Protein backbone atom coordinates (compact mmCIF):
# COMPACT_ATOMS: atom_id res chain seq x y z
CA UNK A 1 0.00 0.00 0.00
CA UNK A 2 1.32 3.37 -0.93
CA UNK A 3 1.15 6.19 1.60
CA UNK A 4 -1.58 8.82 1.05
CA UNK A 5 1.14 11.49 0.60
CA UNK A 6 2.90 9.52 -2.11
CA UNK A 7 -0.45 9.04 -3.83
CA UNK A 8 -1.20 12.75 -3.77
CA UNK A 9 2.25 13.64 -5.09
CA UNK A 10 1.80 11.20 -7.94
CA UNK A 11 -1.69 12.47 -8.69
CA UNK A 12 -0.42 16.04 -8.88
CA UNK A 13 2.33 14.88 -11.21
CA UNK A 14 -0.16 13.06 -13.46
CA UNK A 15 -2.39 16.11 -13.70
CA UNK A 16 0.49 18.49 -14.43
CA UNK A 17 1.90 16.23 -17.11
CA UNK A 18 -1.49 15.96 -18.83
CA UNK A 19 -1.66 19.78 -18.94
CA UNK A 20 1.58 19.63 -20.90
CA UNK A 21 0.14 16.99 -23.26
CA UNK A 22 2.14 14.18 -21.68
CA UNK A 23 1.44 11.12 -19.57
CA UNK A 24 3.33 9.44 -16.77
CA UNK A 25 3.80 6.22 -18.76
CA UNK A 26 5.06 8.03 -21.82
CA UNK A 27 1.89 7.64 -23.90
CA UNK A 28 0.42 10.31 -26.13
CA UNK A 29 -2.94 11.63 -24.86
CA UNK A 30 -4.84 9.57 -27.45
CA UNK A 31 -2.78 6.39 -27.20
CA UNK A 32 -4.07 3.13 -25.85
CA UNK A 33 -1.80 0.98 -23.76
CA UNK A 34 -0.68 -2.26 -25.39
CA UNK A 35 -3.67 -4.47 -26.17
CA UNK A 36 -3.54 -8.26 -26.17
CA UNK A 37 -6.43 -10.40 -27.32
CA UNK A 38 -6.91 -14.13 -27.12
CA UNK A 39 -10.09 -15.99 -28.09
CA UNK A 40 -11.40 -19.45 -27.28
CA UNK A 41 -9.63 -19.52 -23.93
CA UNK A 42 -12.42 -21.32 -22.04
CA UNK A 43 -13.54 -24.49 -23.78
CA UNK A 44 -16.61 -25.02 -21.58
CA UNK A 45 -17.99 -21.66 -22.70
CA UNK A 46 -19.79 -21.34 -26.04
CA UNK A 47 -17.45 -18.45 -26.78
CA UNK A 48 -14.74 -16.68 -24.86
CA UNK A 49 -12.05 -14.04 -25.11
CA UNK A 50 -9.43 -12.54 -22.86
CA UNK A 51 -8.40 -8.93 -23.35
CA UNK A 52 -5.45 -7.23 -21.71
CA UNK A 53 -5.12 -3.46 -21.99
CA UNK A 54 -1.86 -2.74 -20.24
CA UNK A 55 -2.27 -4.45 -16.89
CA UNK A 56 -6.06 -4.42 -17.00
CA UNK A 57 -7.28 -7.93 -17.73
CA UNK A 58 -10.80 -9.07 -18.54
CA UNK A 59 -12.16 -12.48 -19.45
CA UNK A 60 -15.56 -12.80 -21.13
CA UNK A 61 -17.36 -16.09 -21.56
CA UNK A 62 -20.65 -16.65 -23.35
CA UNK A 63 -23.20 -19.38 -22.70
CA UNK A 64 -26.31 -20.23 -24.66
CA UNK A 65 -29.40 -21.81 -23.16
CA UNK A 66 -33.03 -22.33 -24.06
CA UNK A 67 -35.59 -20.32 -22.17
CA UNK A 68 -38.75 -18.24 -22.30
CA UNK A 69 -38.74 -14.97 -24.31
CA UNK A 70 -39.93 -11.64 -22.90
CA UNK A 71 -43.73 -11.54 -23.17
CA UNK A 72 -43.66 -8.42 -25.35
CA UNK A 73 -40.99 -9.85 -27.70
CA UNK A 74 -42.15 -13.46 -28.12
CA UNK A 75 -40.09 -14.16 -31.23
CA UNK A 76 -36.72 -12.78 -30.23
CA UNK A 77 -33.75 -14.25 -28.42
CA UNK A 78 -32.73 -12.80 -25.08
CA UNK A 79 -29.43 -11.12 -24.25
CA UNK A 80 -28.18 -11.04 -20.66
CA UNK A 81 -24.96 -9.30 -19.67
CA UNK A 82 -23.44 -9.50 -16.18
CA UNK A 83 -20.13 -8.27 -14.80
CA UNK A 84 -18.23 -9.68 -11.86
CA UNK A 85 -15.53 -7.48 -10.36
CA UNK A 86 -13.68 -10.46 -8.91
CA UNK A 87 -11.98 -9.72 -5.58
CA UNK A 88 -8.75 -10.97 -7.17
CA UNK A 89 -8.71 -7.96 -9.41
CA UNK A 90 -8.30 -5.14 -6.93
CA UNK A 91 -7.95 -4.60 -3.19
CA UNK A 92 -11.05 -2.39 -3.42
CA UNK A 93 -13.34 -5.10 -4.83
CA UNK A 94 -15.30 -7.01 -2.20
CA UNK A 95 -16.91 -10.40 -2.72
CA UNK A 96 -20.70 -10.18 -2.64
CA UNK A 97 -23.65 -9.04 -4.73
CA UNK A 98 -22.83 -6.77 -7.69
CA UNK A 99 -21.86 -3.21 -6.78
CA UNK A 100 -23.19 -0.13 -8.52
CA UNK A 101 -19.97 -0.03 -10.57
CA UNK A 102 -20.34 -3.66 -11.68
CA UNK A 103 -23.93 -3.01 -12.70
CA UNK A 104 -22.98 0.10 -14.66
CA UNK A 105 -20.15 -1.76 -16.41
CA UNK A 106 -22.47 -4.58 -17.47
CA UNK A 107 -25.19 -2.22 -18.62
CA UNK A 108 -22.88 -0.02 -20.72
CA UNK A 109 -21.47 -3.11 -22.46
CA UNK A 110 -25.02 -4.46 -22.85
CA UNK A 111 -26.22 -1.24 -24.53
CA UNK A 112 -23.37 -1.33 -27.03
CA UNK A 113 -24.25 -4.90 -28.02
CA UNK A 114 -28.00 -4.37 -28.00
CA UNK A 115 -28.25 -0.99 -29.72
CA UNK A 116 -25.77 -1.84 -32.48
CA UNK A 117 -27.73 -5.07 -33.07
CA UNK A 118 -24.49 -7.05 -32.78
CA UNK A 119 -26.50 -10.25 -32.25
CA UNK A 120 -29.33 -11.04 -34.69
CA UNK A 121 -31.77 -11.78 -31.86
CA UNK A 122 -34.58 -12.26 -34.40
CA UNK A 123 -32.79 -15.40 -35.59
CA UNK A 124 -32.71 -16.92 -32.10
CA UNK A 125 -36.35 -17.88 -31.84
CA UNK A 126 -37.04 -21.61 -31.58
CA UNK A 127 -40.73 -21.75 -30.66
CA UNK A 128 -42.39 -18.31 -30.57
CA UNK A 129 -43.59 -17.28 -27.11
CA UNK A 130 -42.20 -20.46 -25.59
CA UNK A 131 -38.58 -21.17 -26.36
CA UNK A 132 -35.86 -18.87 -27.58
CA UNK A 133 -32.11 -18.85 -27.19
CA UNK A 134 -30.77 -16.87 -24.26
CA UNK A 135 -27.29 -15.52 -24.82
CA UNK A 136 -25.40 -14.94 -21.57
CA UNK A 137 -22.39 -12.64 -21.75
CA UNK A 138 -20.51 -12.88 -18.46
CA UNK A 139 -17.74 -10.36 -17.90
CA UNK A 140 -15.06 -11.44 -15.47
CA UNK A 141 -12.62 -8.72 -14.43
CA UNK A 142 -9.34 -10.36 -13.38
CA UNK A 143 -7.09 -7.34 -12.88
CA UNK A 144 -8.18 -3.73 -12.58
CA UNK A 145 -5.75 -1.11 -13.81
CA UNK A 146 -8.29 1.29 -15.25
CA UNK A 147 -10.62 1.48 -18.26
CA UNK A 148 -12.62 -1.65 -17.54
CA UNK A 149 -15.38 -0.68 -19.95
CA UNK A 150 -13.27 -0.67 -23.12
CA UNK A 151 -11.56 -3.93 -22.19
CA UNK A 152 -14.89 -5.57 -21.34
CA UNK A 153 -16.68 -4.37 -24.46
CA UNK A 154 -13.81 -5.52 -26.66
CA UNK A 155 -13.67 -8.92 -24.97
CA UNK A 156 -17.45 -9.26 -25.28
CA UNK A 157 -17.31 -8.49 -29.01
CA UNK A 158 -14.49 -10.97 -29.55
CA UNK A 159 -16.23 -13.63 -27.46
CA UNK A 160 -19.52 -13.24 -29.34
CA UNK A 161 -17.77 -13.46 -32.73
CA UNK A 162 -16.15 -16.62 -31.37
CA UNK A 163 -19.44 -18.12 -30.07
CA UNK A 164 -20.79 -21.31 -31.54
CA UNK A 165 -24.35 -22.55 -31.12
CA UNK A 166 -25.55 -26.11 -31.07
CA UNK A 167 -27.88 -27.25 -33.84
CA UNK A 168 -31.34 -28.57 -33.13
CA UNK A 169 -34.52 -29.90 -34.67
CA UNK A 170 -38.03 -29.42 -33.30
CA UNK A 171 -39.94 -32.72 -33.43
CA UNK A 172 -43.52 -32.81 -32.20
CA UNK A 173 -42.96 -29.80 -29.99
CA UNK A 174 -39.81 -31.23 -28.44
CA UNK A 175 -36.44 -29.66 -29.10
CA UNK A 176 -33.69 -32.16 -29.90
CA UNK A 177 -30.05 -31.21 -30.02
CA UNK A 178 -28.26 -32.35 -33.19
CA UNK A 179 -24.54 -32.93 -33.58
CA UNK A 180 -22.44 -30.06 -34.85
CA UNK A 181 -22.28 -26.35 -34.24
CA UNK A 182 -23.10 -23.18 -36.09
CA UNK A 183 -21.75 -19.66 -35.44
CA UNK A 184 -23.89 -17.15 -33.55
CA UNK A 185 -25.65 -14.89 -36.10
CA UNK A 186 -23.90 -11.52 -35.87
CA UNK A 187 -24.67 -8.24 -37.63
CA UNK A 188 -22.42 -5.52 -36.27
CA UNK A 189 -19.18 -4.78 -34.46
CA UNK A 190 -19.58 -2.12 -31.75
CA UNK A 191 -16.44 -0.82 -30.04
CA UNK A 192 -16.38 1.27 -26.86
CA UNK A 193 -13.77 3.98 -26.40
CA UNK A 194 -13.44 5.77 -23.08
CA UNK A 195 -11.91 9.20 -22.57
CA UNK A 196 -11.17 10.91 -19.30
CA UNK A 197 -10.98 14.62 -18.63
CA UNK A 198 -8.00 15.79 -16.55
CA UNK A 199 -7.22 19.50 -16.21
CA UNK A 200 -9.59 20.17 -19.11
CA UNK A 201 -7.69 17.86 -21.46
CA UNK A 202 -9.09 14.65 -22.90
CA UNK A 203 -7.07 11.48 -22.65
CA UNK A 204 -7.87 8.08 -24.13
CA UNK A 205 -7.75 4.83 -22.16
CA UNK A 206 -7.16 6.17 -18.63
CA UNK A 207 -5.28 3.78 -16.39
CA UNK A 208 -6.13 3.41 -12.73
CA UNK A 209 -4.05 6.32 -11.42
CA UNK A 210 -5.47 8.60 -14.08
CA UNK A 211 -8.99 7.50 -13.19
CA UNK A 212 -8.25 8.52 -9.62
CA UNK A 213 -7.46 12.12 -10.65
CA UNK A 214 -9.87 12.57 -13.56
CA UNK A 215 -12.79 14.99 -13.36
CA UNK A 216 -15.11 12.91 -15.45
CA UNK A 217 -15.16 10.13 -18.00
CA UNK A 218 -17.11 9.49 -21.16
CA UNK A 219 -17.55 6.22 -23.02
CA UNK A 220 -18.60 6.36 -26.66
CA UNK A 221 -19.52 3.20 -28.51
CA UNK A 222 -19.50 3.35 -32.29
CA UNK A 223 -20.49 0.64 -34.73
CA UNK A 224 -18.84 -0.64 -37.92
CA UNK A 225 -20.49 2.14 -39.97
CA UNK A 226 -19.15 4.85 -37.71
CA UNK A 227 -22.52 5.55 -36.09
CA UNK A 228 -22.79 6.15 -32.39
CA UNK A 229 -24.82 3.45 -30.67
CA UNK A 230 -24.19 4.05 -26.97
CA UNK A 231 -22.74 6.69 -24.71
CA UNK A 232 -22.18 7.06 -20.96
CA UNK A 233 -20.85 10.01 -19.01
CA UNK A 234 -19.57 9.02 -15.61
CA UNK A 235 -17.67 10.58 -12.71
CA UNK A 236 -18.06 13.58 -10.44
CA UNK A 237 -17.30 16.28 -13.00
CA UNK A 238 -18.69 17.52 -16.29
CA UNK A 239 -17.89 18.08 -19.96
CA UNK A 240 -18.50 21.06 -22.19
CA UNK A 241 -20.19 20.63 -25.57
CA UNK A 242 -16.80 21.18 -27.30
CA UNK A 243 -15.21 18.45 -25.24
CA UNK A 244 -18.01 16.02 -26.03
CA UNK A 245 -17.72 16.61 -29.75
CA UNK A 246 -13.95 16.26 -29.62
CA UNK A 247 -14.36 13.06 -27.63
CA UNK A 248 -16.77 11.65 -30.20
CA UNK A 249 -14.32 12.37 -33.02
CA UNK A 250 -11.43 10.70 -31.24
CA UNK A 251 -13.59 7.75 -30.15
CA UNK A 252 -14.65 7.00 -33.70
CA UNK A 253 -11.03 6.96 -34.91
CA UNK A 254 -9.77 4.84 -32.04
CA UNK A 255 -12.71 2.41 -32.42
CA UNK A 256 -11.66 1.73 -35.99
CA UNK A 257 -8.16 0.82 -34.81
CA UNK A 258 -9.50 -1.44 -32.04
CA UNK A 259 -12.03 -3.11 -34.32
CA UNK A 260 -9.22 -4.33 -36.56
CA UNK A 261 -7.77 -6.26 -33.64
CA UNK A 262 -10.97 -8.30 -33.38
CA UNK A 263 -12.49 -8.38 -36.83
CA UNK A 264 -10.11 -9.66 -39.44
CA UNK A 265 -10.26 -8.71 -43.12
Amino acid at each position, binding site marked *: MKSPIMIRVKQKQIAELVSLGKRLDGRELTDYREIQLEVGVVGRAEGSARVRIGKTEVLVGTKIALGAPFPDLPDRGVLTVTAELTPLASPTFEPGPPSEDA*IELARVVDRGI*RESKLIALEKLCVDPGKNVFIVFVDIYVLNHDGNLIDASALAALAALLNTKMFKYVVKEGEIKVKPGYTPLPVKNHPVAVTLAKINDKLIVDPWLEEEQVMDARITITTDKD*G*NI*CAMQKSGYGYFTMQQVLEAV*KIAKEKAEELRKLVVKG
Partner: protein
Amino acid sequence: MKVPKKKPKKLIDEKDVRLDGRGLNELRPIKIEIGVLDNADGSAYIEQGKNKILAGVYGPKEAHPKHLSIPDRARLRCRYHMAPFSVDERKSPVPSRRERELSKVIRQALEPAVFVEYYPRTSIDIFIEILQADGGTRCAAITVASLALADAGIPMRSLVAACAAGKIDGRLVLDLMDTEDKEGEADVPLAWMPNSNAITLLQMDGSLTIEEFEQAVNMAMEGCKKIHELQKETLKAKYVAVKEEVEE
Protein backbone atom coordinates in the same frame (compact mmCIF):
# COMPACT_ATOMS: atom_id res chain seq x y z
CA MET B 1 -52.22 -4.94 -16.90
CA LYS B 2 -53.66 -2.84 -19.61
CA VAL B 3 -55.53 -3.32 -22.83
CA PRO B 4 -52.57 -3.68 -25.18
CA LYS B 5 -51.95 -0.59 -27.23
CA LYS B 6 -51.54 -1.10 -30.92
CA LYS B 7 -48.13 -0.11 -32.12
CA PRO B 8 -48.60 3.19 -33.95
CA LYS B 9 -47.63 3.03 -37.61
CA LYS B 10 -46.26 6.52 -37.55
CA LEU B 11 -44.89 8.55 -34.69
CA ILE B 12 -44.96 11.79 -36.68
CA ASP B 13 -47.70 12.69 -39.13
CA GLU B 14 -47.31 14.52 -42.45
CA LYS B 15 -47.78 17.86 -40.70
CA ASP B 16 -44.84 17.21 -38.35
CA VAL B 17 -47.18 16.61 -35.46
CA ARG B 18 -46.35 13.93 -32.90
CA LEU B 19 -48.78 11.44 -31.34
CA ASP B 20 -49.55 13.72 -28.42
CA GLY B 21 -49.96 16.74 -30.64
CA ARG B 22 -46.55 18.27 -30.06
CA GLY B 23 -44.23 19.77 -32.64
CA LEU B 24 -40.80 18.22 -33.17
CA ASN B 25 -39.03 20.70 -30.98
CA GLU B 26 -41.60 21.03 -28.25
CA LEU B 27 -41.40 20.03 -24.60
CA ARG B 28 -44.26 18.24 -22.88
CA PRO B 29 -46.31 20.38 -20.47
CA ILE B 30 -44.36 20.77 -17.24
CA LYS B 31 -45.75 21.51 -13.80
CA ILE B 32 -43.39 21.97 -10.88
CA GLU B 33 -44.04 22.48 -7.17
CA ILE B 34 -41.48 22.84 -4.44
CA GLY B 35 -41.63 22.28 -0.72
CA VAL B 36 -44.32 19.63 -1.07
CA LEU B 37 -43.24 17.30 1.71
CA ASP B 38 -43.31 18.11 5.36
CA ASN B 39 -40.55 15.97 6.84
CA ALA B 40 -37.88 16.18 4.15
CA ASP B 41 -35.39 19.05 4.47
CA GLY B 42 -36.17 19.89 0.87
CA SER B 43 -38.62 18.53 -1.67
CA ALA B 44 -40.12 19.10 -5.07
CA TYR B 45 -42.65 17.52 -7.39
CA ILE B 46 -42.73 17.50 -11.18
CA GLU B 47 -45.23 16.50 -13.79
CA GLN B 48 -43.74 16.36 -17.26
CA GLY B 49 -46.31 14.93 -19.62
CA LYS B 50 -47.59 11.88 -17.75
CA ASN B 51 -44.48 11.56 -15.63
CA LYS B 52 -45.15 12.21 -11.94
CA ILE B 53 -42.04 12.37 -9.83
CA LEU B 54 -41.35 13.33 -6.24
CA ALA B 55 -37.89 14.19 -4.88
CA GLY B 56 -36.90 14.66 -1.27
CA VAL B 57 -33.59 15.66 0.27
CA TYR B 58 -32.28 14.98 3.76
CA GLY B 59 -29.05 16.59 4.89
CA PRO B 60 -26.36 17.62 5.25
CA LYS B 61 -26.33 15.25 8.20
CA GLU B 62 -23.85 13.02 9.97
CA ALA B 63 -22.67 10.31 7.60
CA HIS B 64 -23.29 6.83 8.84
CA PRO B 65 -21.78 4.26 8.75
CA LYS B 66 -18.89 6.56 9.60
CA HIS B 67 -16.19 4.80 7.60
CA LEU B 68 -18.08 5.87 4.47
CA SER B 69 -17.78 9.58 5.26
CA ILE B 70 -15.37 11.61 3.12
CA PRO B 71 -12.83 13.82 4.91
CA ASP B 72 -12.99 16.84 2.58
CA ARG B 73 -16.53 16.85 1.25
CA ALA B 74 -20.10 15.73 1.73
CA ARG B 75 -21.07 12.32 0.46
CA LEU B 76 -23.98 12.54 -1.96
CA ARG B 77 -26.27 9.54 -1.96
CA CYS B 78 -29.07 9.09 -4.41
CA ARG B 79 -31.86 6.57 -4.84
CA TYR B 80 -34.01 6.53 -7.96
CA HIS B 81 -36.96 4.25 -7.25
CA MET B 82 -40.12 3.36 -9.13
CA ALA B 83 -43.45 2.73 -7.44
CA PRO B 84 -44.90 -0.70 -8.30
CA PHE B 85 -47.89 0.99 -9.91
CA SER B 86 -45.91 3.54 -11.93
CA VAL B 87 -45.75 1.39 -15.06
CA ASP B 88 -48.11 -0.81 -17.08
CA GLU B 89 -46.79 -4.12 -15.78
CA ARG B 90 -46.49 -4.01 -12.00
CA LYS B 91 -42.86 -3.50 -11.00
CA SER B 92 -41.41 -5.40 -8.07
CA PRO B 93 -40.48 -2.97 -5.27
CA VAL B 94 -36.97 -4.46 -5.14
CA PRO B 95 -34.57 -2.07 -6.93
CA SER B 96 -33.71 -3.36 -10.40
CA ARG B 97 -30.32 -3.12 -12.06
CA ARG B 98 -31.71 -0.29 -14.20
CA GLU B 99 -32.78 1.65 -11.10
CA ARG B 100 -29.37 1.14 -9.54
CA GLU B 101 -27.55 2.43 -12.63
CA LEU B 102 -29.86 5.46 -12.87
CA SER B 103 -29.28 6.21 -9.18
CA LYS B 104 -25.58 6.47 -9.97
CA VAL B 105 -25.79 8.62 -13.09
CA ILE B 106 -28.35 10.95 -11.52
CA ARG B 107 -26.08 11.39 -8.49
CA GLN B 108 -23.17 12.21 -10.78
CA ALA B 109 -25.37 14.60 -12.77
CA LEU B 110 -26.15 16.57 -9.61
CA GLU B 111 -22.79 16.40 -7.85
CA PRO B 112 -20.98 18.96 -10.08
CA ALA B 113 -23.59 21.52 -9.04
CA VAL B 114 -23.37 21.03 -5.29
CA PHE B 115 -20.75 22.72 -3.10
CA VAL B 116 -19.98 19.37 -1.47
CA GLU B 117 -16.74 20.81 -0.09
CA TYR B 118 -18.74 23.01 2.31
CA TYR B 119 -19.89 20.03 4.35
CA PRO B 120 -17.02 17.60 4.93
CA ARG B 121 -17.82 14.23 6.55
CA THR B 122 -21.56 14.70 6.12
CA SER B 123 -24.06 12.94 3.94
CA ILE B 124 -26.69 14.48 1.68
CA ASP B 125 -29.42 12.02 0.69
CA ILE B 126 -31.54 12.47 -2.41
CA PHE B 127 -34.57 10.22 -2.70
CA ILE B 128 -36.51 10.14 -5.95
CA GLU B 129 -39.80 8.31 -6.28
CA ILE B 130 -41.29 7.77 -9.72
CA LEU B 131 -45.03 7.69 -9.09
CA GLN B 132 -45.91 7.46 -12.76
CA ALA B 133 -43.50 6.87 -15.64
CA ASP B 134 -43.91 7.92 -19.24
CA GLY B 135 -40.42 8.15 -20.73
CA GLY B 136 -37.63 10.53 -19.82
CA THR B 137 -37.93 9.90 -16.07
CA ARG B 138 -34.19 10.22 -15.41
CA CYS B 139 -34.13 13.73 -16.87
CA ALA B 140 -37.25 14.86 -15.05
CA ALA B 141 -35.79 13.30 -11.90
CA ILE B 142 -32.64 15.41 -12.22
CA THR B 143 -34.68 18.55 -12.87
CA VAL B 144 -36.83 18.00 -9.81
CA ALA B 145 -34.05 16.72 -7.52
CA SER B 146 -32.04 19.82 -8.29
CA LEU B 147 -34.97 21.90 -6.99
CA ALA B 148 -35.31 19.72 -3.91
CA LEU B 149 -31.63 20.36 -3.15
CA ALA B 150 -32.22 24.09 -3.50
CA ASP B 151 -35.33 23.82 -1.31
CA ALA B 152 -33.17 22.12 1.34
CA GLY B 153 -30.97 25.22 1.31
CA ILE B 154 -27.94 23.37 0.02
CA PRO B 155 -25.58 25.82 -1.73
CA MET B 156 -25.29 25.09 -5.45
CA ARG B 157 -23.28 26.52 -8.32
CA SER B 158 -26.37 26.36 -10.50
CA LEU B 159 -29.58 24.44 -10.90
CA VAL B 160 -29.24 21.39 -13.13
CA ALA B 161 -31.81 21.09 -15.90
CA ALA B 162 -32.20 17.89 -17.84
CA CYS B 163 -33.95 16.92 -21.04
CA ALA B 164 -33.60 14.31 -23.77
CA ALA B 165 -33.61 14.62 -27.50
CA GLY B 166 -33.84 11.67 -29.86
CA LYS B 167 -34.73 10.30 -33.23
CA ILE B 168 -38.11 8.91 -34.23
CA ASP B 169 -39.39 8.12 -37.72
CA GLY B 170 -36.00 9.36 -38.95
CA ARG B 171 -36.46 12.84 -37.44
CA LEU B 172 -34.84 14.50 -34.46
CA VAL B 173 -37.30 15.44 -31.74
CA LEU B 174 -37.23 16.86 -28.23
CA ASP B 175 -38.32 15.23 -24.97
CA LEU B 176 -39.42 11.73 -25.99
CA MET B 177 -42.40 10.20 -24.29
CA ASP B 178 -42.63 6.46 -23.58
CA THR B 179 -43.97 5.27 -26.95
CA GLU B 180 -41.48 7.43 -28.83
CA ASP B 181 -38.66 6.09 -26.70
CA LYS B 182 -39.67 2.45 -27.26
CA GLU B 183 -40.50 2.70 -30.96
CA GLY B 184 -37.94 5.33 -31.87
CA GLU B 185 -34.39 5.03 -33.19
CA ALA B 186 -32.35 6.87 -30.58
CA ASP B 187 -32.55 8.66 -27.25
CA VAL B 188 -30.00 11.15 -25.86
CA PRO B 189 -30.70 12.21 -22.27
CA LEU B 190 -28.70 15.24 -21.20
CA ALA B 191 -28.26 17.20 -17.99
CA TRP B 192 -26.88 20.69 -18.26
CA MET B 193 -25.98 23.66 -16.11
CA PRO B 194 -26.59 26.47 -18.64
CA ASN B 195 -24.74 29.07 -16.52
CA SER B 196 -21.58 26.99 -16.31
CA ASN B 197 -21.91 25.38 -19.75
CA ALA B 198 -21.38 22.05 -18.05
CA ILE B 199 -22.85 18.77 -19.30
CA THR B 200 -23.24 16.64 -16.19
CA LEU B 201 -25.19 13.72 -17.63
CA LEU B 202 -24.94 12.37 -21.12
CA GLN B 203 -26.11 8.99 -22.22
CA MET B 204 -27.23 7.68 -25.54
CA ASP B 205 -28.68 4.57 -26.99
CA GLY B 206 -29.88 3.76 -30.47
CA SER B 207 -28.11 4.75 -33.64
CA LEU B 208 -27.10 8.23 -34.74
CA THR B 209 -24.53 9.62 -37.11
CA ILE B 210 -22.10 12.06 -35.56
CA GLU B 211 -23.94 14.94 -37.24
CA GLU B 212 -27.29 13.78 -35.91
CA PHE B 213 -25.79 13.36 -32.48
CA GLU B 214 -24.48 16.94 -32.49
CA GLN B 215 -27.90 18.24 -33.54
CA ALA B 216 -29.63 16.13 -30.91
CA VAL B 217 -27.36 17.48 -28.17
CA ASN B 218 -28.02 21.04 -29.31
CA MET B 219 -31.74 20.38 -29.35
CA ALA B 220 -31.61 18.87 -25.86
CA MET B 221 -29.64 21.90 -24.66
CA GLU B 222 -32.35 24.20 -25.90
CA GLY B 223 -34.85 22.09 -23.98
CA CYS B 224 -32.68 22.34 -20.87
CA LYS B 225 -32.58 26.13 -21.20
CA LYS B 226 -36.36 26.31 -21.16
CA ILE B 227 -36.57 23.94 -18.23
CA HIS B 228 -33.93 25.98 -16.43
CA GLU B 229 -36.09 29.07 -16.80
CA LEU B 230 -39.04 27.17 -15.37
CA GLN B 231 -36.89 26.02 -12.46
CA LYS B 232 -35.82 29.57 -11.69
CA GLU B 233 -39.37 30.90 -11.90
CA THR B 234 -40.60 28.22 -9.53
CA LEU B 235 -37.89 29.00 -7.01
CA LYS B 236 -38.54 32.71 -7.27
CA ALA B 237 -42.30 32.29 -6.83
CA LYS B 238 -41.65 30.17 -3.76
CA TYR B 239 -39.40 32.78 -2.19
CA VAL B 240 -41.83 35.55 -2.93
CA ALA B 241 -44.59 33.50 -1.34
CA VAL B 242 -42.47 32.79 1.71
CA LYS B 243 -41.46 36.43 1.93
CA GLU B 244 -45.07 37.57 1.77
CA GLU B 245 -46.03 35.05 4.37
CA VAL B 246 -43.27 36.25 6.66
CA GLU B 247 -44.10 39.91 6.14
CA GLU B 248 -47.82 39.49 6.72
